[in-house]
């Protein structure tokens, strides 16, 4: 929202700080300023001038003009404007001498656009009367910080804040004596007061439509509103001032009385912007006997618009329900200056003030205009001003500092609250323009007092509270431990996005139905939420191998799985990736196994029959901790990773955390009696897993077996493998006898043979 410094200074008496300082004060006490900017820079030093003569310049579309300026005497300059002609009264801007088209051009003649008066840049300004405009400064206020303040969407509301902050008198631009008197000349019916609490309309006759005077055009242009014609410009002025949105209909194009009703399903309206809108029964329209003539609070219809031939105007000043306007404007994707204000919940008491203001301004822009009768003012029951009790002791406890009662009363009264002193508490009456949504509870008043007295006056104070250790977030701690291990093992942490495309899902063969779908994705290729972190891993491989021959990375993130009902399941996963441009890939897989064991030394690897298309068919293994399946290690299939070797560890952190929590962390007494060891070398087939042999050995594990360790493998000329294991046996209470050791050894040899292996 843009605020004109000139406008504000008309509404605050004796405004004696500059725009920059004003913006700072507004930021500290009311709403965030995004900066100040000068508008109409060229007006500095500009003056009216009359063109005395124009001569063409050879080989140029420009002309050489002699002008008589009011402030700088006669000047010669070059002008390319098509309307530059002898006798034209326009505006001269002194810019110094510049060589243009071979002529020394001293200053320039300016267009309305160059001067900041309007968007008109077709030619130089054709000036009638005086040029009573000065450069203005525009303060831009962040719209988000005005979301809760319907009153601050106009200059009068902001002027009230400024006056309160600076302790200056506020000037009300409305004089209610200007309100036309007499019976209403416009027929109005409201069907649902819930959607339209108030509709006020005034008929004006003797209107002459034409361009607005320059001061009006300039003011609107300065705050980013376009000039249309004198009548429409007045509605915009009032919108930017009071800030009551209003609308002007051509009275001769309205058939019968005005009806405020819900649209019929499928009802159409050709709007002022040239678009045709199809409405639903959710939308509120202004209609006449022939159909909709405006979408309530959003936009007017083209057929009833003010045109050059308009002489009678129905001026609408109404109040519409905030949510209803917002819904309609959101559905139609049509945000207008009016809808933006209505959706903040405007003050229904403001409609008559806007009529009075319109009567005054119409007289200025279209002299001779006549109000016919008085306003037609239809409304339901309007809410009484709420009264909020404010306990002064409570106020002090909320602010953290004491404020004198008189100061509290003064602050509230300057902001137009009514205050009754009830001793320990105040009874505070909320002004109507703050009562629609903004202020309803005592906490809202804490803000009013706090921001006016200035938060910088509150000293920081340590609270008195018990010192207690907070509960530990075990999951976060666990994740951080894993991060530490992974990074120490050489893996660098990455963060990947949660969004994936259908093509990505298809590429890994993940069923699309299992994904949660984004209804309004930022791009069509980001329409699903990831059900695996592998999409990111694949991308990380592909991107980084452009720069590195070998690299390692990991991510901890959430898989999001759709559920038949309720919120999706979010599963924490850790993925680690290792890429090597050369080599046979074995080392990488081994390293990932080592990483898994670094996280939990008890991790086991078991072959799996489950085939996934993107995995190397002979290079994948399930990872177990205890009996729990906690993850998988695999190498990407060459079809997914054409060059180099890309190995992946994927851990499901929920089950892993459970399995780790289940591991007893109790001390075992150190043995006092010596242990014995014996080695067994087993002959196994070409692709027999060491794990299978170890299992066979384990099946004959007696009480005394402390551990079974894999030692080495050795390949025989016939392709068979010799796998050696070392078995350690011992007892806590005595030394084992040679017979006991032999018995254990024999038992294991028996088990091996039973499993179909031979001893070497």
């Amino acid at each position: 929202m843009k605020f004109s410094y000139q406008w504000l200074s008309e509404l605050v008496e004796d405004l004696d700080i500059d725009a920059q300082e004003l913006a700072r004060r507004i930021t500290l006490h009311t709403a965030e300023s995004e900066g100040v900017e000068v508008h109409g820079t060229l007006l500095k030093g500009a003056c009216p001038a009359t063109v005395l003569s124009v001569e063409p310049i050879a080989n140029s579309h420009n002309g050489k003009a002699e002008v008589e300026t009011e402030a700088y005497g006669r000047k010669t300059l070059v002008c390319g404007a098509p309307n530059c002609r002898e006798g034209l009264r326009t505006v001269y801007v002194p810019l110094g001498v510049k060589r243009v088209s071979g002529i020394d051009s001293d200053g320039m003649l300016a267009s309305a656009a160059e001067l900041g008066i309007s968007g008109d840049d077709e030619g130089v300004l054709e000036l009638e009367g005086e040029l009573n405009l000065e450069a203005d400064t525009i303060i831009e206020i962040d719209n988000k910080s005005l979301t809760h303040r319907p009153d601050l969407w106009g200059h009068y509301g902001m002027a009230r804040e400024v006056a309160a902050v600076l302790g200056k008198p506020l000037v009300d631009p409305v004089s209610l004596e200007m309100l036309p008197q007499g019976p209403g000349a416009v027929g109005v019916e409201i069907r649902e007061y819930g959607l339209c609490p108030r509709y006020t309309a005034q008929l004006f006759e003797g209107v002459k439509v034409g361009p607005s005077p320059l001061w009006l055009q300039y003011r609107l242009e300065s705050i980013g509103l376009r000039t249309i014609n004198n009548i429409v410009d007045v509605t915009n002025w009032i919108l930017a001032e009071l800030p009551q949105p209003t609308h002007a209909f051509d009275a001769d194009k309205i058939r019968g009385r005005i009806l405020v009703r819900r649209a019929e399903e499928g009802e159409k309206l050709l709007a002022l912007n040239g678009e045709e809108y199809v409405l639903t029964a959710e939308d509120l329209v202004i209609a006449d006997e022939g159909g909709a003539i405006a979408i309530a609070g959003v936009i007017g219809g083209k057929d009833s618009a003010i045109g050059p031939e308009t002489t009678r105007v129905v001026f609408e000043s109404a109040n519409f329900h905030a949510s209803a306007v917002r819904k309609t404007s959101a559905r139609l994707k049509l945000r207008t200056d009016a809808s933006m204000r209505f959706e903040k919940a405007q003050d229904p008491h403001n409609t008559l003030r806007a009529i009075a203001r319109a009567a005054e301004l119409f007289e200025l822009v279209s002299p001779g205009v006549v109000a016919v009768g008085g306003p037609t003012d239809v409304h339901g029951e309007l809410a009484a001003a709420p009264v909020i009790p404010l306990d002064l002791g409570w106020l002090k406890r909320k602010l953290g500092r004491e404020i004198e009662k008189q100061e509290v009363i003064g602050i509230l009264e300057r902001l137009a609250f009514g205050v009754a002193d009830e001793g320990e508490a105040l009874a505070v009456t909320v002004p109507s323009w703050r009562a629609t949504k903004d202020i309803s509870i005592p906490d809202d008043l804490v803000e009013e007092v706090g921001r006016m007295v200035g938060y910088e006056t509150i000293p920081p104070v340590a609270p008195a509270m018990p010192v207690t250790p907070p509960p530990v977030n075990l999951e976060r701690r666990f994740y951080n431990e894993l991060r530490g291990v992974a990074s120490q093992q050489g893996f660098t942490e990455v963060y990947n996005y949660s969004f994936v495309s259908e093509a990505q899902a298809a590429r890994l063969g993940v069923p699309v139905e299992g994904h949660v779908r984004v209804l309004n994705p930022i791009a069509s290729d980001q329409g699903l939420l990831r059900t695996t972190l592998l999409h990111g891993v694949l991308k990380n491989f592909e991107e980084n191998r452009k720069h590195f021959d070998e690299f390692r990375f990991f991510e901890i993130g959430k898989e999001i799985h759709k559920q038949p009902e309720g919120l999706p399941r979010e599963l924490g996963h850790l993925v680690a990736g290792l890429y090597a441009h050369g080599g046979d890939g074995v080392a990488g897989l081994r390293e990932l196994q080592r990483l898994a064991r670094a996280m939990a030394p008890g991790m086991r690897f078991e072959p799996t029959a489950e085939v996934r298309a993107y995995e190397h068919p002979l290079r994948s293994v399930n990872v177990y901790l205890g009996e729990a399946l906690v993850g998988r290690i695999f190498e990407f299939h060459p079809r997914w990773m054409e060059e180099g070797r890309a190995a992946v560890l994927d851990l499901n952190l929920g089950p892993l955390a459970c399995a780790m929590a289940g591991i007893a962390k109790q001390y075992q007494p150190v043995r006092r009696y010596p242990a014995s060891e014996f080695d067994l070398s087993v002959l196994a087939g070409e692709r027999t897993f060491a794990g299978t042999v170890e299992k066979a050995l384990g099946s004959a594990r007696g009480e005394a077996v402390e551990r079974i360790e894999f030692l080495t493998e050795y390949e025989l000329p016939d392709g068979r493998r010799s796998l050696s294991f070392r078995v350690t046996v011992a007892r806590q209470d005595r030394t084992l006898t040679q017979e006991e050791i032999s018995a254990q050894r024999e038992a294991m040899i028996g088990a091996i043979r039973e499993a179909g292996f031979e001893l070497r």
Partner: protein
Amino acid sequence: MIGRIEELAGQTLGRVREAGTPEELEAVRVEVLGRKGSLAEFGKLMGKLSPEERVAAGKALNSAKTSLEAAYELKKTAFESAALEARLAREWVDLTMPPPGIVPGSLHPLTRIQNEIESLFFSMGFAALDGPEVETEFHNFDALNIPPDHPARDMQDTFWLEGGHLLRTHTSPVQVRGMQRLGPPLRMIAPGRVFRNEEVDPSHEHTFYQLEGMMVDREVSIAHLLYFMKTLLGGIFGREVTVRLRPGFFPFVEPGFELDIQCMVCGGEGCPVCKHSGWVELLPCGLVHPNVLRAGGINPDEYGGFAFGLGLTRLVMMRYLIDDIRWLQSGDLRFLKQF
């Protein structure tokens, strides 16, 4: 006999001193000082001497033995020292060469800053909580005093999902979950990933990180909020910071503030970093709105609280002077290995 002993001693002393190798020295020792050596032979002959002669010969034998042993030890030590010197001289290692083996990886800068801030809060008694990334409309909006069709919903462009769910637009929904879980009084933070439907450019991301903080107790004032914010930011920046509060609108707090810190680049004088205002906007905060306390099952007549939201992504960019937000989720190891 004494003469022969002395003669042997004299000869042997010369051989010991002249021994060229440890082996040569050892041979002399065995020959003369050994159990069957020449001196031992003299010992055997002692019995045949008269008592007088025996005393004199014994003295001569002992003295020869002592002096030979001393000479032997001296020479042996000299050989050992020389051997050690020689070994040391051979064992030159170029320790300026980088070590082989694993080069540690690094943690993501967002992880680093999260951990740092989490431990800071933990030390001040704040529990760290998590919430889901996919949220209900209730937790993300309604419970935070943002009813449907409230214009405040425009402040956060939302990714809507099937089933009426959404990707959380802020970490604030954890406020309500936290209140329900912990009950009053409580102190909590909730760091995490949040989503806004925004076009990505060097300073905007649709996926970024926030940290929500909340304290609920019998009496909580703006003065307390200021105290915690000053302490926290002093901890983060490692020095005292000057903060200021100014009005800010967030439906889940009342009153609501924007907290600015005095620009650390110019010290408040005004520079391009603070857009010449002397202040940098850092975090939104406020006293918890009674409706939010109610949604969390806490009676606002008995308890009050403050809440704040810290933009972790922004903090990371400030700390490491990162000029393009897209690096953070690029997965590009050229960037990430720097941390």
